[in-house]
């Protein structure tokens, strides 16, 4: 408190010009600039949403960026492109399955990393380095090396290989996210549960899990987002049935059906809804 007081008195006696200039920078220049950057970030997305309502002229049902008039046709006919629809459902199934697995495995690993110091957990440093490497390594190398593995061991590419790959690149993110929330965990609550006669499993179910749940959910959301948006790895390890981003990539060569923007808008809206929900929840708690 005394330090705070001292700096406050010092602050009042500081020369005025730099202070005023700083305030001006904060009040006008920086906000304007920041809003411009945000506009730049949002601009392509706004364009995608607007052009999902664009009429198509001519025989081919492809997106074009000349405005031909407003229509909700593509929303009514959202499932008219069979390959696109099935790739979307494949992506959803894939994201759900890989999120479930990656969240469980990543959470267990995070618990091990937070609970045990390296004298009790030999290899902890190695595990941390592998996680770091997994996050930092270029995705194309991971995708290409997975393809090499599957080809070498004659694993047919399909849903299974996609799940294997997606869990692989999600685990590290889940672990890191869960671990960040876990580090403030009060172990004495668990001790209390043991003192009251709960066995380890009951303690985990009734005490540990509810406490770490926000972190686990954040990790799961992260894994889901990573999976549903993954292109690079999926492009290597998917078979004849591609997930959504890979299908869209393939379509860039022959023309993109307008429904792609409908799905894009839908995924965007769901993502924003989740983000807003997490903000509201965190605000309620604090």
């Amino acid at each position, binding site marked *: 408190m005394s330090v705070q007081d001292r700096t406050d008195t010092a602050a009042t006696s500081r020369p005025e010009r730099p202070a005023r200039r700083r305030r001006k920078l904060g009040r006008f220049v920086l906000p304007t600039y*920041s809003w411009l950057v945000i506009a730049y970030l949002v601009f392509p997305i706004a*364009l995608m949403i607007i052009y999902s309502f664009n009429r198509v002229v001519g025989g081919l049902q492809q997106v074009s960026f000349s405005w031909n008039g407003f229509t909700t046709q593509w929303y009514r006919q959202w499932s008219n492109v069979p390959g696109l629809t099935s790739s979307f459902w494949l992506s959803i199934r894939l994201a759900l399955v890989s999120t479930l697995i990656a969240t469980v*495995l990543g959470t*267990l690993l995070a618990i091990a990393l937070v609970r045990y110091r390296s004298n009790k957990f030999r290899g902890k440093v190695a595990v941390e380095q592998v996680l770091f490497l997994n996050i930092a390594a270029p995705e194309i190398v991971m995708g290409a090396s997975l393809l090499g593995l599957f080809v070498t061991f004659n694993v047919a590419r399909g849903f299974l290989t996609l799940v294997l790959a997606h869990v692989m690149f999600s685990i590290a993110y889940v672990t890191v996210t869960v671990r960040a929330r876990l580090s403030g965990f009060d172990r004495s609550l668990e001790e209390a549960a043991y003192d009251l006669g709960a066995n380890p499993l009951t303690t985990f179910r009734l005490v540990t899990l509810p406490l770490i749940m926000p972190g686990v959910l954040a990790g799961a959301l992260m894994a889901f987002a990573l999976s549903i948006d993954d292109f690079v790895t999926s492009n290597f390890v998917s078979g004849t049935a591609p997930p959504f981003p890979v299908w869209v990539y393939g379509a860039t060569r022959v023309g993109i059906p307008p429904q792609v923007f409908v799905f894009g808008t839908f995924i965007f809206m769901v993502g924003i809804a989740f983000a807003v929900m997490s903000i509201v929840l965190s605000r309620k708690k604090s």
Partner: protein
Amino acid sequence: MDESVLTDHPRRVTPRRRGGWGKRLAPYLLSLPAGLWLVLLFIVPLAVMLVQSLETCSPATGLCTMTWSWGELPHQVNLYHQQFITSLLFAAAATVIDLVIAFPIAYWIAFYGGHRKNFFLIMLLVPFFVSFVIRTIVWEFILSNNGIVLTFLTRNHLVPSGFHVLGTSYAVVAGLAYNYLPFTALPLYVAIERIDRRVLDAAHDLYANRTSAFRRVILPLAMPGIFAAFLLTFIPAFGDYLNQEILGGVSNTMIGTVIQNSFLVNFDYAGGASLSVVLLAVSLLGIWLYARLLGTSTINEYL
């Protein structure tokens, strides 16, 4: 920060010993499933890739045989060194642009964001809610010859009529810079947010002007964030090929395209694996430098 310090403290309540073996095995049992998954599907594939780079593939039959020759590595590097250089330059350009664009906004959100910090952070993350592929396609439309930007510019005679962006290196760098901007902004924000405002006040009290306060206080304290931003932007941009394939032309191929084509089009697994090994080696150098400067645990704090 405070929380991690707390966990490192000796426990206030000494836990009772429950079960000898179970207790001792617990960390290994907890980390076994994830560890196994990562070893089998992350480490082993990298090893397989290294072995594959020593094979020789016949372009006619697509069959690869083990020849234990290291020749493929220099051979491929020789063939595609230009693409490596292009990738390095594009990734470096995009990273520098992103750092310059992101620093002021990260600074503003951290210092002036107030209660709307979360809102602004979500705004920074907004691109992530749209598929990477779709984002890039939209950029293709934006930059195309009859797209919004160029139509406006040519109509107002701001650029000559034959002017085009799509297919050039500028388009690729623009796409990379857009797609990875959030990866730069977030670590910067985390680092700047941690700077104690009083340190800055102290600098001003000691008659530092804005420039020197920035240079000697903010910049050094934001350095970890800059490194994290570099890692999270440069490495993925270096291996990126989608932006180049959609926005670039034939003259500015990046190494990612070559690797993808080796594996998926030409079925030259030895060649593709060799290039991947080189790409990984170059990336590892950057990662290693990062780890030496900041330690591997810092990545947790910047995600």
